């Protein structure tokens, strides 16, 4: 993340990444300052930088803590309560730490028709978790997701920032094995 980011896209960097540093300072770093300034330069109000900065916190830390929200509130002249009211509206800002591999299985209508519930069940079984819970080794968090916008390629599964399409229960163990190869 040290590469300089063009201001036009500074507020639109992928998050839910495998590489995150929960301890990294949000704004007390050259990178954090650069991101803050780049994002602020694109909007006529400070408040409009809220979603981009919540996204940055999620990208950096893997989740958005109360402390992150307070830092963001301070930088944007907002109250922490307001920031929480916004953050809580959006499902993609994780409100608690998640596993290294964040697995989201779409079970919406097109995936539902193509056996998404069986795919979800298999992911839960193979990771030994319940929906939304992180496995004891910190590797996996599996959740049921609303439409991921890949309906023609059902079942769609998003793992961190990547899509896996046409997923069947039979492919689940292979997908998980691939993750461990890259991510542990």
């Amino acid at each position: 993340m040290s590469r300089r980011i063009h201001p036009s896209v500074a507020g639109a960097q992928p998050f839910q990444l495998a590489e995150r540093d929960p301890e990294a300072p949000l704004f007390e770093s050259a990178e954090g300052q650069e991101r803050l300034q780049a994002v602020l330069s694109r909007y006529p109000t400070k408040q409009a930088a809220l979603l981009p900065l919540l996204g940055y916190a999620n990208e950096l830390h893997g989740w958005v803590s109360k402390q992150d929200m307070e830092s963001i509130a301070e930088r944007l002249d907002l109250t922490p309560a307001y920031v929480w009211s916004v953050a809580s509206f959006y499902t993609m800002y994780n409100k608690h730490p998640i596993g290294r591999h964040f697995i989201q299985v779409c079970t919406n209508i097109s995936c539902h028709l193509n056996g998404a519930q069986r795919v979800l069940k298999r992911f839960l079984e193979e990771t030994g978790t319940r929906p939304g819970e992180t496995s004891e080794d910190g590797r996996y968090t599996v959740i049921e997701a609303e439409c991921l916008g890949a309906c023609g390629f059902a079942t769609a599964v998003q793992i961190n920032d990547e899509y896996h399409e046409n997923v069947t229960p039979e492919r689940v163990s292979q997908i998980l094995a691939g993750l461990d190869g890259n991510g542990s």
Partner: protein
Amino acid sequence: MAYPYRDDRETTTVLSRHMGEPEARTLSGWLERGGYEALGTALEMEPDEITEIVKESGLRGRGGAGFPTGMKWGFMPKENGRAHYLCCNADESEPGAFKDREIMRWTPHLMIEGCLIAARAIRAGHVYIYVRGEFFPVVRVLNQAVVEAYEAGYIGRSVLGSGWSCDITVHLGAGAYIAGEETGLMSSLMGGRAEPWMKPPFPAARGIFGAPTTVNNVETLASVPGIVANGSAWYRQWGSDESPGTKLWCCSGHLVKPGNYELELGVPLSEIIYDVCGGAPDGKRVRAVIPGGSSTPFLTADELDCETTYEGMQAAGSSLGTASPIVMDESTCLLSAMRRIAQFYAHESCGQCVQCREGTEWIAKILRRIEDGDGEMKDIDTLYDLCEQLTGRTICVLADSVVFPLRSSLDKFRDEYESHIQQDACTAT
């Protein structure tokens, strides 16, 4: 996936011609394919001339509502010297729809060019591309294209030396269906919960940051460069008088060949489902189709000979929506399918209006109860009553969006509901 279905992409495709060609994602590859020529043409035109061509082309909004694009642009104030904004709605979130992501991930410059031309037409100096948060692989491609276009002078100060300036900022959503509704999108963009607001004021009078704003869908904007380069008559060679042009179809559910297909408007729905997509797999029969994304009314297998224009789909009792047919074969439990749809709308209600917040939840719970074998016959009446309560009484159309499939499924597949309630058995084969 197939681009396009007919093998004459040179002459019949507007949007998907270069899909599947990785080089088309780069600026040099896009320029080799004639990219940004339309922008050059637009820079030599007056803003109102551009709007006029788009009006004549008959292009209609591809985000689902089908509002005439040129007319929408015409609502923007004509004076200069005040900030105007364009929002590109790339928050593709209607279950069943997956077309904008294909445009962005294969031909991002087509959309950027469309954004710039539209911005010039409505006198906007800044374009915000609101991309759905989950689309990380897409946003990587898009971001790279925006930066490349900036560095080559297609975006920014004095675009291509014309003296006209326009910025583009990519803005990432964070998982909220309602941010795809235009006022919800604007609330979200300004750093708020994606709560829709009452119109008027219309965005052209008061949109983001209190300034005149136009919100256009990705596919709408991607259709613009071709129209500006080739003229409105060229675009009108496809489709009907009221629904000209081509449309990117998103076909999903039980199909032999699901995927995206660009087709001219008006092709019979049955042809799309059976000839283009090969019908249902394993020789099964089609039982039901939701033709325009999950918020449109169900059609039965006998109702598919309709013309896929805005007016044709309306005449058939449904809607073109985002042209995203979700096909269900004879083995589908329609009650379970409807329950899953209702569950989605209950989850995505923003909570401002009581009818929607409570009603969508009630509907999902009742359907779940019937599915679990605990339904009563009076539940059907309650569901119809909820359809009444949820229609036309809320700020936005999210509540109406669950009523369309629900009411039509109750009307057309009542036997399914009764069978579950009375015998705890499904009518699917």
